[in-house]
């Protein structure tokens, strides 16, 4: 019971302080671009009605979900491939690094050429952009599989899919999860970027559109919502992670001396 109270306290404490600081420091702000927090919160209440959430946040969310899922799948698959073979790694790494360095806004036109301007394009942008942390972490995780475990598997004839399933993916999972976590917030960022072109709804679109039409409190309220969304999604993520990596956290706790 006290544990729960403590956890909630920890979660809310610092944000509360920061918000208070924000509130106080902008209370009398007359800068057009930095309105008082009060105004922003009022706008927040007015703007993000259920209807608006449904019209703008929902489409964003499902594009995000699909794009992110693709990024995770492709990232892990490609990561395992690249991580397990030195030859593949040597061949593919420069190409992957090449694409990684190209800014998504520049990539959008190219993706549009192939994926059109509808949902597909936005999903591809999200997937392509958030692929990298998953990919990189998977590669590193796979490369660092414990040698003794790896030998154990080989000697018991655990090869191919079984090896992948029981050894490689499991051993690399803490790191893959770290990558997925990174990818999640990048995916959210790309959701916004993808909605900067050829969109007519979405959370990102709303923010960009507010920014362009000088609806500054609306813009800030959108950013707030984005932060909240990120926070919620990361909570969901942590929940899933705690399940999937129960052994890992248990191991750490146990060894630390419970």
């Amino acid at each position: 019971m006290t544990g729960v109270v403590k956890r909630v306290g920890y979660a809310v404490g610092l944000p509360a302080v920061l918000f208070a600081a924000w509130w106080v420091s902008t209370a009398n702000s007359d800068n057009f671009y930095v309105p008082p927090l009060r105004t922003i919160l009022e706008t927040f209440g007015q703007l993000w009605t259920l209807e608006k959430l449904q019209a703008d946040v929902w489409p964003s969310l499902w594009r995000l979900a699909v794009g992110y899922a693709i990024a995770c799948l492709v990232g892990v698959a490609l990561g395992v491939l690249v991580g397990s073979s030195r030859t593949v790694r040597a061949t593919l790494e420069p190409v992957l690094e090449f694409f990684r360095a190209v800014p998504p806004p520049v990539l959008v036109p190219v993706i549009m050429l192939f994926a059109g301007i509808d949902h597909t394009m936005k999903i591809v942008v999200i997937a392509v952009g958030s692929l990298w942390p998953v990919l990189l972490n998977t590669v590193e995780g796979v490369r660092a599989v414990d040698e003794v475990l790896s030998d154990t598997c080989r000697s018991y004839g655990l090869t191919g899919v079984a090896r992948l399933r029981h050894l490689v993916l499991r051993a690399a999972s803490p790191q893959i999860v770290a990558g997925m976590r990174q990818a999640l917030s990048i995916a959210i960022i790309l959701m916004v970027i993808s909605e900067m072109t050829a969109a007519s709804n979405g959370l990102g679109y709303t923010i960009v559109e507010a920014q362009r039409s000088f609806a500054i409190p609306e813009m800030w309220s959108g950013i707030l919502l984005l932060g909240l969304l990120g926070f919620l999604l990361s909570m969901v993520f942590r929940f899933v992670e705690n399940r999937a990596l129960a052994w890992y956290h248990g191991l750490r706790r146990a060894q630390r001396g419970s």
Partner: protein
Amino acid sequence: ACGGGSSDDEASSGGVTAVKVGVIPIVDVAPIYLGKEKGFFATRGINLTMESGQGGAAIVPGVVSGQFQFGFSNVTSLMVAQSKGVPIKAVANGVASTGKTGADFGGVVVKANSPIKNAKDLAGKKVAVNTQKNIGDTTVRESVRKAGGDPSGITFVEMPFAQMPAAVDKGQVDAAWVVEPSLSVAKDAGARVVAWNYVDAAPDLTVAVYFTSTKLAQENPDMVKKFSEAMAESLSYANAHPDEVRAVLKTYTDIDQVILDQMTLPMWPTDINRASIEQLAKLGQADGVFTKAPDLNQLLPQS
């Protein structure tokens, strides 16, 4: 400093005032580059530098915060800003439509084999514009309206001008409103122009203007005046010397020589066409671009 009462001490030295202008590196701002080259600003004690930004997102806040002394923006955006209470003021004309159907610097294009033959056919179609709720969609709607169509069913899709020729070509949109040089590129690829929306919106429509912050306008009217004068001189010079315009374009854009030679240049009248702006304001209001009517007296310079 020069006697002009420059309050911006650090920006001025030896009778010369340093002025930064936020511009978009497109055809429309050729006169300011040309004017600088010709020394119209230097003779007035202005040391001009151009900072290029991609549209209002960067330029307006830059001007409001005093990072830039002046900025370039299309009229609708400025009216939106003004109606939202952004403290800005137009100081010089920017660019205007040629007013000639068939020979303007912006228009609505469709694919060569498109069933869309004229503006009326655009009703209910998917049309690309660079920004929604801005000058593009309001003027296109007006074109359709004037041609006897119903603009309410048009779906507007946002994308940068540069991507529009490809999008039209691949059938991703039915039509696109493009300006030069993308207009010429699209035409080169076989696209047809079905509407000249600037021309349809108002005669000799003023499309964009140079503006400053109200703060600067109040504190340093002298500098604003000098800038306006220099701009006016640059505009009329540009209007009179299209060849030099094409030449100066090569210094700050990457437009292909072929396109450069064939593209239509806009008009650069010295004065802001207030009537056309009122018309734009009306259109914008009808389309719900403004929540509150912009105060044009506040925004536009007294003439």
